[in-house]
């Protein structure tokens, strides 16, 4: 992989990210969403975040598999549920994952 490819990818990612983040605010202008959609909007966050969690913890390309990282995330989830801070949660996830990998 050449350095030129790296910079091409970076430029491409910057442009598409800008366009995607700008699309909604620009296209919709200041118009209000119809009332019935505000309920949908409020539920977007749980739907998207849950999908991000399971895909990043379980998916490896197009395969699903349970690994040390899955266990680490699960332990962090229990700690976070019981009131641990975000920082403690992510540190625990990394620690448990690293520990399991060191053992295996």
């Amino acid at each position, binding site marked *: *992989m050449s350095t030129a*490819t*790296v910079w091409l*990818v*970076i430029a491409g*990612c*910057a442009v*598409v*990210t*800008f366009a*995607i*983040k700008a*699309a*909604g*605010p620009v*296209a*919709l*202008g200041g118009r209000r*969403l119809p009332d019935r*959609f*505000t*309920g*949908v*909007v*409020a*539920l*977007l*966050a*749980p*739907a*998207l*975040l*849950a*999908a*991000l*969690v*399971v*895909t*990043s*913890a379980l*998916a490896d390309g*197009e395969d*699903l598999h349970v690994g040390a*990282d899955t266990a*680490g*995330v699960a332990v*962090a*989830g229990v700690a*976070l549920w019981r009131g641990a*801070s*975000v920082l403690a*949660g*992510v540190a625990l*996830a*990394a*620690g448990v994952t*690293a*520990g399991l*990998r*060191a053992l295996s």
Partner: protein
Amino acid sequence: MTSGCPVPGRRCISWADGCRQWSAWLREASRGSLGALAATHPSDGATRRESLRAGVRAGVPFALAGVLVSLSFGVLAREAGFPVVAAIVMSAIVFAGSAQFAAVAILASGGTAGAAVAAAALMNSRFLPMGVALAPSLPGGPLARALQGQTVVDASWAMAARRDGTFDRWLLFGATAPQYLTWLAGTAIGAFAGDALGDPRDLGLDAIYPAFFLALLLTELRDGRARAVAAAGAALALALVPVAPAGVPVLAASLAAFWGLRGRA
């Protein structure tokens, strides 16, 4: 000379016309933007600062966790063959974790530049519905709106959402600012010190990203409906992983939110 204007060569409006224009302007001003500004400006400025501060406070824990996430990105980017500067520049101008990880992973596994950018676009596609949701809460012309839209990152967007479906944009800006700074700092540390740290998998750095999103998710599970939608979104995404390209499963999960239409229409 017409209408007895005192200044030679100028066209004067009559006193009566002037009065009519003045009163029309005053009416306009008191009813319209000027009146609104005068009525709300002082308290508006105070709540704006308050929101900004509250945003920064709310963003700091995520910013601290983000150091570890971006550190792992810096290490992975170097491993994939990125120069140190390229890794840092990517974090500075892309500033979208999942897209950056996806693009680097595809390049590292021998994919083309086009495939890497397409994967990043799909990963970021979740920002489309987020931007649509945020849009009514942003003021200004197209450029100003486009720039304000750039401050959307998952944690800030979720925290700035009010229960009535509107967004506190100053809280959004405040929450994103520390996350941007630490995202850069972490990337730099990872890119410079990556070789000394060893294999990121041995350190469990790949578990940090999902744990970070899990922390965000837990703050969203306020009621039964949110929990049901989260479960449905997760199931939908997992079902699509084996058959759809990376990014599509997460975007498709947003369909679960249409549950919100039930009982409202």
